[in-house]
């Protein structure tokens, strides 16, 4: 069952400088759903709208970000709601932290450097629950214990903790109220490989124990491969491909996905690899037609004029590319020739 449904969401940054307005179409017509109890990944290069999408669906919309269309529906067991209908910030606040929760990007800077960790926990818990000090301590102690953290971290300042420790504390803070949906924005970026593995392990453990749904945003395809059940690949504000990880990694259908995957070096393989040519386009002025066509090796005239729709390929796989239409095997043929 889908716990979150996003339908044709448009989130733009609209700015006015000296009377000139500019619109950055960070999320442009995105539709997807997330099933209960699954790990849904969102991948893409920096500046493709991943973080904006997360902001929009968790209701953190502040100018210059504006929602110009679409729907975001949450189907909780006891309640169904469209977060865009909540006009009152108080109502949205009650939702955030308790039912949906965000593990923010850059754990290095999210904890207040002049307050002890315990204070941050107090802020979160007392905002949502009416508990005594004893109950607070018990709640936190049990949660930290389950995550393999020590109670002593509560008395430290953030600068006393290593990067990995800080990230683990941030995760503990985001999950202490057992939210039904967790959004994780680049939770392992800037961590060392061994610590990254520990954090991935921790996220998995929390998900299994609390039985919640996780939406994971990162540009690191290897992390997606190790954690996710289903994955959406974003490019320039749009979802270009979505599918379960096995079929997506096994046979990527969109040229952008294949490019992302083939640029990854692997231990044990010294063969030459090429980087994706060019850079992602500016979202203030995206290219016409398929937004990927300036970088696409297979682009034809039609790609420059028409925008491909996200089509259902089979039960689990969706792709937005003309090459996949009408059973065109051209791409696969060419890709096979290159290898």
């Amino acid at each position, binding site marked *: 069952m889908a716990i979150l449904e996003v339908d044709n969401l448009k989130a733009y940054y609209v700015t006015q400088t000296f009377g000139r307005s500019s619109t950055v179409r960070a999320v442009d017509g995105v539709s997807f759903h997330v099933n209960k109890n699954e790990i849904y990944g969102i991948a893409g290069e920096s500046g493709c709208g991943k973080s904006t999408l997360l902001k929009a669906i968790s209701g953190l919309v502040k100018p210059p970000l504006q929602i110009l269309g679409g729907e975001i529906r949450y189907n909780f067991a006891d309640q169904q709601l469209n977060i865009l209908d909540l006009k009152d910030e108080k109502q949205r606040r009650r939702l955030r932290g308790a039912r949906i929760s965000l593990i923010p990007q850059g754990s290095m800077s999210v904890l207040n450097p002049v307050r002890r960790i315990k204070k941050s926990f107090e802020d979160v818990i007392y905002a949502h629950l009416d508990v005594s000090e004893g109950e607070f301590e018990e709640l936190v102690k049990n949660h930290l214990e389950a995550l393999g953290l020590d109670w002593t971290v509560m008395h430290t300042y953030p600068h006393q903790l290593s990067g990995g420790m800080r990230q683990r504390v941030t995760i503990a803070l985001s999950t202490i109220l057992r939210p039904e949906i967790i959004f994780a924005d680049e939770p392992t970026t800037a961590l060392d*490989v*061994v610590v990254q593995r520990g954090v991935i*392990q921790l996220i998995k453990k929390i998900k299994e124990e609390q039985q919640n749904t996780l939406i994971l945003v990162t540009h690191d395809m290897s992390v997606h491969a*190790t954690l996710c059940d289903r994955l959406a690949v974003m490019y320039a504000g749009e979802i270009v491909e979505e599918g379960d990880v096995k079929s997506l990694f096994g046979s990527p259908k969109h040229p952008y996905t294949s490019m992302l995957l083939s640029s990854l*070096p*692997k231990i044990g393989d010294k063969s030459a690899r090429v980087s994706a040519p060019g850079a992602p386009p500016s979202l203030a002025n995206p290219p016409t037609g398929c937004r990927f066509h300036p970088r696409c090796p297979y682009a034809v005239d039609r790609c420059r004029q028409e925008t491909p729709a996200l089509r259902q390929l089979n039960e689990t796989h969706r792709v937005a590319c003309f090459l996949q239409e009408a059973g065109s095997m051209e791409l696969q043929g060419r890709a096979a020739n290159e290898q």
Partner: protein
Amino acid sequence: MNSEKLLVVDNVTKVFTKGQGFVKSKIEAVSRVSFALERNRPEIFTLAGESGSGKSTVAKLILGFEIPTTGSIVYKGNPVGGLKGKREFIKDVQPIFQNPFETFNPLKKVQSYFHDTERNFSKFSPGKYPLTERALELVGLTASEIKDKYPSEMSGGQLQRASIARALITNPSLLIADEPVSMIDASLRMSVVNLFKRLKDEQKVSIIYITHDLATAYYISDRIAIMLRGQFVEVGAVKKVLDEPLHPYSQLLKASVPAPDPETRWSEDITLSDLETREYTRKGCKFAGRCPKAFDLCREQEPEHHAVDDRLVKCHLYA
């Protein structure tokens, strides 16, 4: 003496002291590190390890930003940090930093860095910058691409390539690249990494590549040193070390790199390190607290470097 060698790092230790008076504590950020690069055989030498393993301190020592507590670093026969051959050294050894957005002053045009460097190091004729153009060409940029641009107007990959181009103006023999790709998107990483490979092959530049990303290290380097808490725990040809790591720490590192393949997921759990300082001051082997194969001797006595299978391993298992 040592004229065949480009760079000789001999038994270098760097101790940082922390605090004052009674609470003074010492940390060996780099502990008895030795390696050498040949003069006529350019290579990419990787220093790999987690943050806090002393990789960047080694880079600073080689660049002469820090003075070793004991041991010596000799570049082309002259000790680093001394006055003899200093100008030559500055020209010959160039750094590349981690975050290209911090390397460049956001209020200065990118081209000014090129022009200033060129003016400092060559005979200058007004309005002409032949060395800048050549350097930009080497990294696949053109003068018009950086002309009148501020750092914020360029992408991370472009800016990092510009940063490498700036280092190439003086025609160096050694580049020291400290985490040059960690701030760049994975899809653009390869453009920088491939550039290093090409510089080594075509321009005969040796590169000390500092990274925690074993996959790119495997891809470009010739030799690798795995660092843990200031020590080299395993040094050898990259194929040997990463195909079949011998030191338990190298094995853990390799196993922790997530594979871009959903079919191979980790099955067993790992223990994360204690507080960093605790590992630095540990007696015996620094890895003993986390090592699955540790025995009593590991906790008592620091292992020596043992030569096994064409590489050096600092582990009691191979004594």
